[in-house]
């Protein structure tokens, strides 16, 4: 039976989007780095390939939009939990239209669509950490209280706690789920602080896996029927020390995914896909 919180990490579909050429120059970024467009596209293709071939998800690929340089980071445009999809109102003005295509795609997947129409609300999906039992919403430059409230309204079954994000772009810029009840967290002070707040706010207990590099803490966890625990994480080339930590996860199928280029425009692993479980219900 498919009760609440059943099957955390179980996904059947993934929505991704192509990389527009404009990403190289126009995508928002916190650092001044040169993005190798080709490299980024290669990386992204590999990423999608892992989802499709290696993990067997049904991948919905949305076309890139040159007028939306950041559109590859689909995570920010929607939060999907169970059968409900919340179409966000991204904090960056230039990204607002990214949601349009996303909404249509999710509609086509028969999800219940909730839209964030409140003009005062902003929410980036990258600030939303769903643990399987509850939501943590980072209040960041991109996400505000009102956005979090709307998320809470959209997913009434779950507690929604707010966590201040003082450094880094998003909440998930330094953390992600590594399994049921396991939070992967960066070792920086802001990250650790955020973790403590999350632990304090929660009625549930979480284990933590601390990795030396904040950005390496952004991983994709899945629990797939024939594969068990799956973790997509950074490559040893990028963060050798962090990878050593992941290697301690004996029960996980570990899949290193390169993210050298996208990270230059603040794109982490989770940013590039929206994962959906279409069999959530009976």
């Amino acid at each position: 039976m498919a009760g609440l919180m059943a099957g955390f990490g179980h996904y059947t579909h993934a929505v991704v989007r192509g990389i527009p050429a404009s990403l190289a120059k126009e995508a928002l970024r916190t650092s001044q780095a040169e993005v190798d467009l080709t490299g980024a596209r290669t990386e992204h293709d590999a990423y999608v390939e892992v989802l499709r071939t290696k993990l067997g998800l049904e991948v919905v690929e949305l076309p890139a939009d040159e007028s939306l340089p950041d559109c590859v980071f689909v995570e920010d445009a929607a939060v999907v939990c169970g059968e409900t999809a919340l179409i966000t109102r991204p904090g960056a003005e230039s990204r607002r239209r990214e949601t349009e295509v996303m909404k249509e795609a999710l509609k086509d997947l028969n999800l219940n669509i909730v839209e964030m129409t409140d003009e005062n609300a902003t929410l980036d999906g990258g600030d939303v950490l769903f643990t399987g039992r509850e939501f943590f919403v980072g209040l960041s430059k991109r996400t505000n209280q009102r956005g979090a409230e709307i998320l809470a309204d959209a997913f009434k079954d779950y507690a929604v706690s707010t966590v201040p994000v003082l450094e880094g772009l998003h909440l998930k810029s330094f953390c992600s789920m590594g399994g049921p009840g396991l939070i992967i967290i960066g070792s920086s002070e802001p990250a650790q602080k955020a973790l403590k707040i999350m632990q304090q706010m929660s009625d549930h207990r979480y284990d933590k896996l601390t990795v030396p590099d904040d950005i390496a803490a952004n991983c994709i966890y899945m629990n797939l029927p024939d594969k068990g625990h799956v973790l997509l994480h950074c490559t040893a080339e990028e963060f050798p020390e962090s990878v050593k930590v992941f290697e301690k996860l004996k029960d996980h199928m570990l899949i290193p995914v390169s993210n050298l280029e996208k990270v230059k425009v603040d794109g982490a692993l989770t940013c590039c896909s929206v994962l959906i479980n279409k069999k959530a219900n009976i």
Partner: protein
Amino acid sequence: MTTEAGSETEVKEKAEETSAQPDQSETAEQEGQEVANVEGEEKEKGKEKEKEGKEGKGITRYLPTWFKKQKSQSQTSPTKEVPPAGEPVCKATEGEEEPAPEVNGHAEEVEEKEEVKSEEAKEATAAESDSTASAETEPAREEKVEDATAKSEEKTKEAAEAEGAEEEQKEKEPQGHVEAEADGGESQTSIFQSPLRLVRKNKMKVVVCRVTLLDGTDFTCEVEKRAKGQYLFFKVCEHLNLLEKDYFGLTYKDSHDEKCWLDPTKEIKRQIRSNNWHFAFSVKFYPPDPSQLTEDITRYLLCLQLREDVSSGRLPCSFVTHALLGSYTLQAEFGDYEPDQPRPLDFISQLTFAPNQNKEMEEKILELHKSHRGMTPAQADIQFLENAKKLSMYGVDLHHAKDSEGVDIMLGVCANGLLVYKDRLRINRFAWPKILKISYKRNNFYIKIRPGETEQFESTVGFKLQNHRSAKKLWKVCVENHSFFRLNAPEAPTKARFLTLGSKFRYSGRTQAQTRLASSLIDRPAPSFERTSSKRISRSLDGAPVISITEAGSETAENGRDPHLELHSDSKSPLRVHGDNIYVRHSNLMLEDLDKTQDEVLKHQASISQLKRSFMEAPPPSPPQPNQWEKRLTSSPATTIRVQQQQVVCAPQTEAASADYTSSDTKEPAKTPEVEIEETVVIQEVSRAVKPGLVPVTADSPATPPAEPEPKPQDQTEMVEEEAAAVEEVKPVKPERASSESESEEEAEYQPNVAASISQTKIPEEKEEEEEQMTKEEERQQVSPPVVPAPPVEASEPAEELSQEEEEAKKEDTSVVEEKKDDQEEKESGRETEESTDDPMVTPEEAPEGLILPDETLVAKPTEEQERPKMNGEASLVEVDPRLQVICCSEPPVVKTEMVTISDTFAAQKTEIATKEVPIVHTETKTITYEAAQLDGNGDGEPGVLMTAQTITSESLCTTTTTHITKTLKGGLSETRIEKRIVITGDCDIDHDQALAQAIKEAKEQHPDMSVTRVVVHKETELAEEEED
């Protein structure tokens, strides 16, 4: 007995009573007297109707201010102050809000009736008896005193009127004795056994109660007018055939139409305050894991409650969850889906599943229902509960409040602790283990938080409730939830606390741990019961205030699950109330900023809110962590259930520990929680009128308790131990009873886990993070040194413990009266009556310890002292006693304390300002111990036999003296120890040294034959000049 109040009418009444029951003249007389007392009180109250709230239930002698009041304004005879021995207790007039348990004699009554009724129920009662019994003894004693106090009790006009009405009734109807019977309960037990009781019974005045059950039906039954809540509750449970009843309770609507829990230990009549004998049976404690309930019938009832919660919107859930829960409801109530059913949708739409149910949902429900084919009703209920329990608002009791900035928030009390919500968002959480104390005062509600690993100080977070009633209600709910879910056993009211003040309210039922154990012993065939089709039409009573988080901000409709939410519900505008303050105070010290101007205060407030910082960074306390995979296992419900059930059977203790099925927080073992109460009767208008902008923010100084290492007395040494503690005091406000609305003010504290807080320095609660833990410990040690003031050599282990305890006690007891801003602080003798300051609290705590002192001794005449140290003495400390040598004079550690208020982690983290920079109030605490040298090396190993122990409290204007006399006998020698604790309170002008000197001098004069062996001075002052900004 204390009969001075017997006026003529009363005497008549008494005569009437006596004649009515000539067969029981003895008891009747007592009753008569009691009635007389009551009447006397009533009369008095009538007289002073305009000033007091009836709940000033203090125990006079423990509440010095009261005492004073009595002296000055009422004609209480001094005899009352003497604790009588074993008499039945008079009914103390208590308001509905008065939590004082009127337990005395009641258990018998109930039991007796149960006996007549049914064996099952009786059994239940018996099972309950442990708690009841314990609740019985101590209050009995206290109430005696109480009735003395009652006269000076303050009463609201309404209250007085209500009483008056009752009184009238009583007089008109010869059944007055019914009430008396309840009063005399204890001593009349034997009477109950006699045939006469039948006669009596016939004469009893009975009332018909209507109880709305969870399935929406009404149950009516007759109860005696004087019956206690328990009685009715048992009758209902009996009717329902419910054994696991501890999760449930009865509610009634108070005069403000708010839903309140009926206190089982108190008379119904006194709680409902109206003639509306209508109640609702409801779930009071939502079991975190319903699968652990033993009986299906219990689960069924829980389901009924949850269905109501869900359909009314109190328990918000998503569309999918609504549908799923609805489908289980259908399965449970109607069995398998019947394809033949002509128009299922019509039928289903008559049922309410969700606040805004629509066709789409109904279709979904039906669709899911089909999939449950073959599931038994009990299984369907279990599935229902398994899903419902995971909802984030499951079992969360919401209360409207405002935070320190006046922003509307909701406080949710649940099994795990206290949750803070703003709109729908959880902005903070205080797990029970994090909370050191819960208190309320007027419409403020406070929790004292255990310091986080990076903090040195305990902090107190304050919230403002709508009014005093709601603050008290919230407090009670917290006390009960904490007790139920977190303790192994309810706190025993019998704890030798001589000087308990204020509300004695505490949870009187079984805790979850106990009820689980009891449930595991249930041995009866599963009772058959009928699952009726609950219509779940909102019931008049139960559908009480549906508080949903969305409402917090504004009255926007609570948006349902509809996937296409209207999110415009502008719950944004957080109605700020200007001038509303949140009072945060530290209970350790009474600190008020007397010198600050309003502006300064306002500035402070601003800075506080700005400087909020995370004081709760620590992860939730948890026991040694299993590795993540183990953990995953244990948190899977299946495993948990299995494990815990085993525990239920064999190890009640450990079972308790696993009570929180999700969080494996360790329960505090063998806690000795103390409920401490301070009561102040203040007219509310006053407090309202008070300063808009006052921020009495105080912080604990963890340092310098009045450490009193136990001096080990030499053989027959007699000694007088003096202690003077000077506490900065804040003045009572002059009450002005303006309108009938004024209600008596009250405040209370509840200290969930004393043990834990005491051992703070030793027990790091976060076991997970070893590194940090170390640091924390170190930090704490830094903090704590002053706690143990370099004690004289002879201080033995226990002594240290004691001193720690004392420290704790002191911390807890002292409190602040916020009114200080008022310029009415000058005590005006005429006005003193209505205000009781809290400072005397310091005193009471000490006494119990004295009791336990294993002192050896010789009998000396019981020296009782009631002394009132004058402030004008001139002796200096050193010259006080030539024999007195200074053994130890601890460096007066100056602790600058500070306060951090945080109700929201966001704000908390945002401001990264070190605590040090947030000094709000500076205080200075000093402890100086003088000890006579002769005591050295007195290894008084064998505990003596305690012969007598007695405590006397007296007070004068600014001092409170508690004298504790113990006489112990050991090895043929007896020793009398007199411990005096003098609390001097006042504003800065008081010359503490002088006062102390005077006190010592007086003690010497009074007991020339005794020697002063030790003097401990504990001084807490506010450093007023520190205010920067």
